[in-house]
């Protein structure tokens, strides 16, 4: 009898120690999984950087960044990506110019005016717009936007303008969602004070709400830039993909992402590492953008807590 109780107690103790051990292992395991994302970011940068190091020992950074000559298969290959940088910038700026007015209006509407069914319909549409894959946007671009540009403005339609129109649609949800949250977060007192002073709705929005939500709106636009610069498939299909310096909005062009994806299929040696170097440039640019957003949102969080 006593023996069996003793055995049971022993089992229990053993059980207990297993439970404790499991608990400790689980904590370590969880720590590991938590660091996976960070590890991934570090690994991605390390691997891509390692691939592009041999390139910079062969081609000076200045030439890489500021030459417009991209001829990796020539007898004397040149690796200048300046045209691609400029194309990326132009396409992104154009997309922002098309997208921001619509996105901010939508965000204002959703946070200030929207009620009931219409608001939920609008919200669902935006969610869906965010969920549509970029290949679908690309297909739509080829079938509708490219012929539209060709017929109205000339050229062959595959152009920076087409690419930026498609991008504008793609970054809409990003800008709307983030800026709506920040506009919504503006305190009621501020609004009421403005209305009490006799300001109209528009004056309140323009003079009080938007300035108060500025940091959130700026981060929404920065996130939009990040998405536009990093987008590949859709712009690849409508942008024309010619490695030339763009002369107008309807000329063909190649962005940084298009350059990586086009040449990757056949690149070797220095050419290959040039593509990884392009990737590093893109990656660094996007990391900086995201760090800005992270720090802005953290600062505003601190301010609101204070």
């Amino acid at each position, binding site marked *: 009898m006593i023996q069996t109780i003793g055995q049971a107690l022993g089992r229990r103790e053993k059980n207990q120690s297993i439970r404790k051990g499991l608990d400790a292992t689980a904590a370590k395991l969880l720590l590991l999984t938590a660091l996976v994302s960070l590890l991934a970011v570090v690994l991605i940068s390390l691997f891509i950087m390692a691939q592009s190091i041999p390139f910079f020992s062969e081609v000076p950074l200045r030439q890489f960044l500021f030459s417009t000559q991209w001829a990796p298969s020539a007898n004397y290959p040149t690796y200048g990506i300046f045209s691609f940088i400029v194309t990326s910038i132009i396409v992104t700026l154009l997309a922002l110019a098309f997208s921001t007015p619509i996105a901010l209006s939508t965000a204002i509407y959703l946070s200030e005016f929207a009620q009931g069914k219409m608001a939920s319909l609008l919200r669902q549409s935006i969610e869906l717009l965010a969920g*549509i894959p970029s290949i679908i946007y690309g297909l739509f671009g080829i079938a509708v936007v490219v012929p539209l540009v060709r017929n109205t403005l000339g050229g062959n339609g595959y152009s920076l303008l087409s690419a930026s129109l498609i991008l504008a649609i793609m970054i809409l949800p990003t800008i709307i969602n983030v800026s709506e949250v920040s506009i919504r977060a503006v305190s009621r007192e501020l609004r009421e004070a403005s209305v009490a002073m006799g300001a109209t709705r528009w004056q309140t929005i323009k003079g009080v709400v938007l300035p108060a939500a500025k940091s959130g709106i700026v981060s929404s636009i920065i996130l939009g830039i990040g998405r536009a610069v990093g987008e590949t498939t859709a712009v690849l299909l409508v942008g024309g993909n010619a490695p030339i310096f763009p002369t107008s909005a309807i000329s063909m062009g190649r962005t940084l992402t298009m350059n990586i994806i086009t040449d990757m299929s056949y690149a070797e040696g220095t050419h290959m590492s040039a593509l990884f170097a392009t*990737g590093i440039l893109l990656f660094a640019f996007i990391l900086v953008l995201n760090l800005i957003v992270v720090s802005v949102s953290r600062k505003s969080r601190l301010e609101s807590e204070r």
Partner: protein
Amino acid sequence: MTRTAPTTFERRRRRSDSVAVAMIKIWAFTAIVILIVIIGYIVFKGMVSQSLQESQIIPTFSTPDQSLVVIANKKSGFHSMPYDVLRQFFDGRSFSLRRITHVNEDVKLFYETGLKSDISEYLMLDEKSFQRSEASQLSASEVLKHVSANPGGIGLISKETALPSNVVKLQLEDVVLAVHPSVTELLGNIKLSKIDQQAIKPLFNGEYTNWKELQGQDLSIVVVTSLSEVRQIPGSVALVPYREAFLAQSERLQVLSSQTRRNFTLRYIFEKPVEMGKYGGISTIIGNTLLMVFVTLLFSVPLGVGSAVFMVEFRANKRLLSIARTGVDLLAGVPSIIFGLFGLLVFVQLAGWSFSLLSGSMTLALMVLPTIIRTSEEALLSVSPSLKEASVALGATKWETIIKVLLPAASPGIVTGIILAIGRAVGETAALIYTIGSGVDFASGPLSSARVLAMHIFLTITEGQRMDRAFASAMVLVFLVLFINILARLSARRLIRNGTN
């Protein structure tokens, strides 16, 4: 108290207010308009395909007294049979229906005993061609029986009889537009070589008087009825049987016709792709897509949920938490092409998995990780602390509390995150182009190349051959995404309901 009339300033202020508000409302709804246009367009082009065809044979025209009756199995998708297609079949040069219709069947030819010489004369073929086409000679009733038994069966009989229910009589299109050589002559940079199908009826009704109206020469139109007249009168045109025009080597006008066909059919989903998706369906591609999503989740869900649990349960360690969160934020912003590069370097080359399902899925798993972590973290944070405290009070360890209390309570939110991740994975292309490969067969193992739906659309577009196929696949993808979206919304709604209870 009397109300004073508003001042001009006040009126202007109010007007500008209402204008501004109206503008905001209009802009706001462009998002819905854009969405409707895009989805509507993709669905329309997915359902219906329009193609321009150029041929000598005029569609829907046939000579009145035909000695041959062409019949076909209903499944073949034929309604009419152009002369040249029939000739190609009997010549043995064309042996599959998929060149002409959406049906992927081999042609089987049958003809009634005694028709051999008629057919060879009508189609201008010699005996050798007959052997090549492997057409079988049978009695009339046997022809009917075989045609009704074979989905690709096409039969020729001498007179119309009662047909079995799954056999249809085809209209034999064999009329061409014969013209005098002066009509198609190249003169002063103008040459008329083709004519729109829509213009043929008005042409013979006398609505056109000069070839100039049809972008041809300045020559008056003469409508005649026989080939001999066509050869003599400049500017003349006649409808004649193909055979006669061919034998007389007379000048013919090409006819441009636009064909509207059903693009998407149920068959398209359930059939295997043929010739890299040019013909047939996309069943294996859909299978690969599901497989890829499954493998992606296999890696990303444990990692993502684990990471979220850590960030919620071990909040005390502020520095670690902020490091982990920064990692998630940064990873979320990395463009997919960078993931693709990383996948190419690490999974394809370094791990030696080549272009395979595993390489692609691992790349995607990294990509969707932030989505899963963020939503899971939110869901875990919203679990009420009293539940946790009760579990700990009962003597459960932290691990037991997490597994038995925390995760079940947060599961609706976690599921929403997983569904969002699926949505992202299903539509991804840039990260997959250099990782997952492009084989159209169903993946036989983790290391076999697997073409998924989004990649299939991309490759079909870049190969530039069958845009109608690209649209049909795109429609399937759009519906898949819509379905996933609705699923996510339903599970989110369940989450809210649980929360209020």
